[in-house]
């Protein structure tokens, strides 16, 4: 279903992107990755495209720089996770919970700024447990179509 063969450089690029985002920073751009890794920008661009094709990262449609590294968002969204360790933009409600698990945050606030048909809401994590369990997360399309447009999803 995802017939893309990743090469070692792709893994290194992915690790660099995730390390930056997990540290509360923006994902490094192509030129920064190239300089840091000592490879040419074209090689980094190719790696990013393979990772995008493999659904390991999501690139911006125009700039072809990292837009999403699920559950992290490289751009501000309506969702944010805050803890003593830092603060992160995330892509959606699901990714808000995913980030807490991924980083093993024991204490955190999950902020949903709200939107059309959706109220502003704050969830809290205490001692590694989600305190508020009432609520529904709605996805705009069936699962087999999520990746048709993952940013819309």
């Amino acid at each position, binding site marked *: 279903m995802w017939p893309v063969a990743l090469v070692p450089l792709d893994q290194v690029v992915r690790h660099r992107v995730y390390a930056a985002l997990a540290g509360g920073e923006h994902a490094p751009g192509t030129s920064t990755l190239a300089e840091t890794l000592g490879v040419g920008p074209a090689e980094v661009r190719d790696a990013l495209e393979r990772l995008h094709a493999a659904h390991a990262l999501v690139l911006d449609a125009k700039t072809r720089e990292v837009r999403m590294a699920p559950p992290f968002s490289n751009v501000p969204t309506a969702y944010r996770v805050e803890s003593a360790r830092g603060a992160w933009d995330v892509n959606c409600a699901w990714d808000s919970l995913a980030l807490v*698990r*991924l980083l093993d945050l024991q204490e955190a606030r999950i902020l949903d700024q709200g939107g059309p048909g959706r109220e502003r809401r704050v969830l809290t994590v205490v001692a590694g447990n989600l305190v508020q369990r009432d609520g529904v997360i709605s996805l705009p399309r069936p699962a087999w179509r999520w990746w048709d447009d993952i940013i819309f999803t």
Partner: protein
Amino acid sequence: MASVREALATSMTLEQCWTISEIWYAGRLDLDYERPPVDYFQRLLRGAGLVGEAWSLLPPS
């Protein structure tokens, strides 16, 4: 615009999402990326009670 049935079918509770997130994401940050088989994630969704056509990862035949 989705029908009411479609909207209901593509919703999950916070409880379900919290459960799935633990299984899917816990401890994965340092792993090399390896796309898991589709059926693994499908079983994960099914185990959380997310069944039916809207939750199928493969398009309907």
